[in-house]
Structure formats: C-alpha cells, structure tokens
C-alpha cells in the first residue's frame, strides 16, 4: 500500500526565518489527520509545501509516491484542496464555478456535488460576491470534493461555518474516510471538532511536529498532577517529561503536567516529596493550552 502522503526531513525557511523544521511523517489511506497549532505555528506552510505550491528548503514530500515538486497531472487529479482564503471568481454564480471546475476533471461527480449543495444549503444561483463567508466556504469545499479525491487537504475548513453546517461537513469527511482508500488532512483551531473525527493529530509548535499520532494515545499519555505536600516542595520539581509546572506561593501545593509518567515513578515521587499526588486526565483542549502555557 502506497502512503497517501510521505514527508521526510522537511524544512522550509522564508529568508532567515525557519517556518518548518525537520518534519517527517506519513499519512495512510483511511486516516483523518487533524492539524492543530497556534497562528504562525506553520500549519498552512506545511499543507502548501506538501501540495507542491512552493518547494521545500530541504527534505522532501511525496503524494501517492510522487515528489511534490514534480507531480503528474494524474496524481494532481486525485487531490482535493480547500485553501484558507477561497479563490472563487466574484462574478460567477456557484453553478458556473462548479461547472467550470468540473470541466478540468475527467472523473467529476456532478450528482454528488448537487446532492451536497442541497444538503448544505448552498445557493448556487447567486454570484460569489454576494455570498456569506460560510456559503463561500461551503462552495469552495464542494469544488474540492467533486473529483472524489483520494487525498483531501483542507486549511481551516470550518472556521466560518455554523455548528449545524460544521456537523454536516464533518459527517461528510467521515463518510469519505470510511471508504478506506481515502485520506483527509485538515487544519483547524476548533479543537472540539478534531476530538470527534480525527484518528490522528499533528500538534505543531514553532514549525515542529510536537505530537504525531493517535489522539487516544495522546490523551492517555498526558496527565495533570496535583501535589499536596506536608512540607515545602523543592523549587524545581524534576519530573521527567514535564510539559508545564506551577507552584503555589506557600510551596505546599503544585500542579505539574507530564507526559508518559508511569505509576511506579509517581509513587516514588510521592514518597520522596512527602506529598499526596492526585492524577487527572485531560481533554485535547486542555492539553493544547498546557503545551502553549
């Protein structure tokens, strides 16, 4: 099975500023990958570089086994992309935009596009210039779905959708992923959507992939520890895998967020510090906040 996307030691700089640093990962058919990170973490640059819009500074990215710098037309026809800023032509109606986009593909599925346009309530008779932000976003998503892509890449696809539209859109993504020959990568700020539909998370910070893997594994590996000590705690708590640490002024309680800490270590720390330790699991949003805290 060829990986849908394969990225090796990918780095990208704009002038002296490193935007992507040594990223290596793969996406397999059936994967729904959610990309999260603060503004400026490198999400858009990563998506655009792997699609071949601008060359990597070093390393490489391949889609269905073809290097992103020299993809064949046949491979490009298997990709759907929804950019953060849509590229609709203001004077054309939705219907005309779709017909025009469809004319570039031999495998365009007009029936699917019409069905989704109805389900998502996209007014196809109006010119793009008078559509709302959400309507524009839905229309440009339809343009990316019409060729039934094997790889769908979406940059902030749900930012201007209302909750109902978001849910319908996510269901469509899942329907695509259930057909296991397809893969989806989407970046978002809306962490709660990721928790539902993504089976993998790319957590980006400062151009690096801080976490690449199973969402469930991430949730089970990160714990927030609450320490209640009978005597003053040392100023620095040297837990391995510390993500963040806060200590109360009196030195008698502290909160530490750690990764991959086993029970034996926990008990040892509890005895050594003469402290009771409560361990708490975190949702993705909390994990995200702690990592950026």
């Amino acid at each position, binding site marked *: 099975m060829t990986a849908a996307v394969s990225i090796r030691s990918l780095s990208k700089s704009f002038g002296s500023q490193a935007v992507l640093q040594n990223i290596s990962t793969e996406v397999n058919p059936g994967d729904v990958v959610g990309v999260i990170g603060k503004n400026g973490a490198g999400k858009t640059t990563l998506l655009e570089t792997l699609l071949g819009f601008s060359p990597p500074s070093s390393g490489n990215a391949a889609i269905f086994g073809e290097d992103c710098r020299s993809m064949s037309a046949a491979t490009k026809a298997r990709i759907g992309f929804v950019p953060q800023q849509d590229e609709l032509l203001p004077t054309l109606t939705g219907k005309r935009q779709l017909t025009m986009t469809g004319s570039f593909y031999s495998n365009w599925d007009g029936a699917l596009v019409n069905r989704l346009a109805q389900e998502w309530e996209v007014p196809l008779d109006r010119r793009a210039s008078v559509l709302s932000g959400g309507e524009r976003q839905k229309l440009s998503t339809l343009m990316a779905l019409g060729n039934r892509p094997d790889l769908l890449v979406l940059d902030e696809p749900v930012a201007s959708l209302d909750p109902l539209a978001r849910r319908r859109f*996510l269901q469509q993504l899942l329907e695509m*992923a259930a057909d296991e020959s397809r893969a989806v990568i989407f970046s978002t700020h809306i962490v*709660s959507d990721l928790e539902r*539909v993504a089976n993998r998370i790319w957590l980006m910070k400062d151009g690096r992939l801080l976490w690449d893997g199973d969402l*469930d594994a991430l949730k089970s590996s990160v714990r927030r520890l609450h320490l209640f000590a009978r005597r003053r705690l040392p100023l620095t708590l040297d837990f391995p895998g510390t993500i963040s640490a806060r200590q109360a002024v009196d030195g008698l309680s502290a909160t530490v967020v750690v990764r991959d800490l086993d029970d034996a270590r926990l008990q040892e720390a509890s005895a050594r510090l003469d402290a009771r330790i409560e361990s708490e699991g975190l949702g993705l949003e909390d994990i995200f906040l702690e990592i950026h805290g």
Partner: protein
Amino acid sequence: MFILNPHSAVPIYQQLIDQVRRLVAGGQLAPGAELPSVRDMAQQYTVHPMTISKAYSLLEAEGVLERQRGKPMRVAAQKRSHSTLAARLKQLEPQLEALALSARQLELTPDEVIAQLKKRLGDKS
C-alpha cells in the same frame, strides 16, 4: 443508546467499551442482541470509524461481543468468568476513585465514609 463525549479525558473507544460492558453485565444488552454497524455508529455519533471498530475489536477479544460473517457484531453468550468478583469490582473503580477524592477533600475519615456506604448498601452490622 450510548453517551459518547469526545471532549472527555477518557478516549472515546474506552467510553464505548465501558458502556457496552455495563449494559451487558446489567442485562440491558442480552446475548444475541446486535450492535449497530461501525459505519452507522460513526455517522450517528460523528466519530472516526476506526474509533468504533477499535472498541468492537477489543470487546470481541474480551469475549463480550462476537463477530458474525457479513452481519453486525452481536453480544456473545456470557461465560461466568465475565462476572467474577474481580471483574465486577473493576467496573466500580472509577466511581470509587471519585468517592475517595471527594471524601478526602471534605476531610472525612475512612470510617465515616464506610459507615455511610454500609447504610446505603443495606448492611445492618
């Protein structure tokens, strides 16, 4: 039938496993009862299909569910071993943890808590 909360610290597949186990142990899901297909569950709860199939597979390995060729998963005939004392106690663990935490926060002694528990459980001793 299920309550799946994606934002909980407990992974979704684990929530599903816990709930199926409880429904089976409590008899609400009788042996032979069929569960919705992976696809239907994924659509209904808007979660990735792998999340559902992971839960189903683990429940199958445990002997709670069984796979039928070309048909949905169904509840297996339960062996006594599923309701051993240890297994049943394990199911109570999250609630016990929560109770212990609250008791400590309220500075109640173990004896005080146990006395209340006994009363609830109908122990006359």
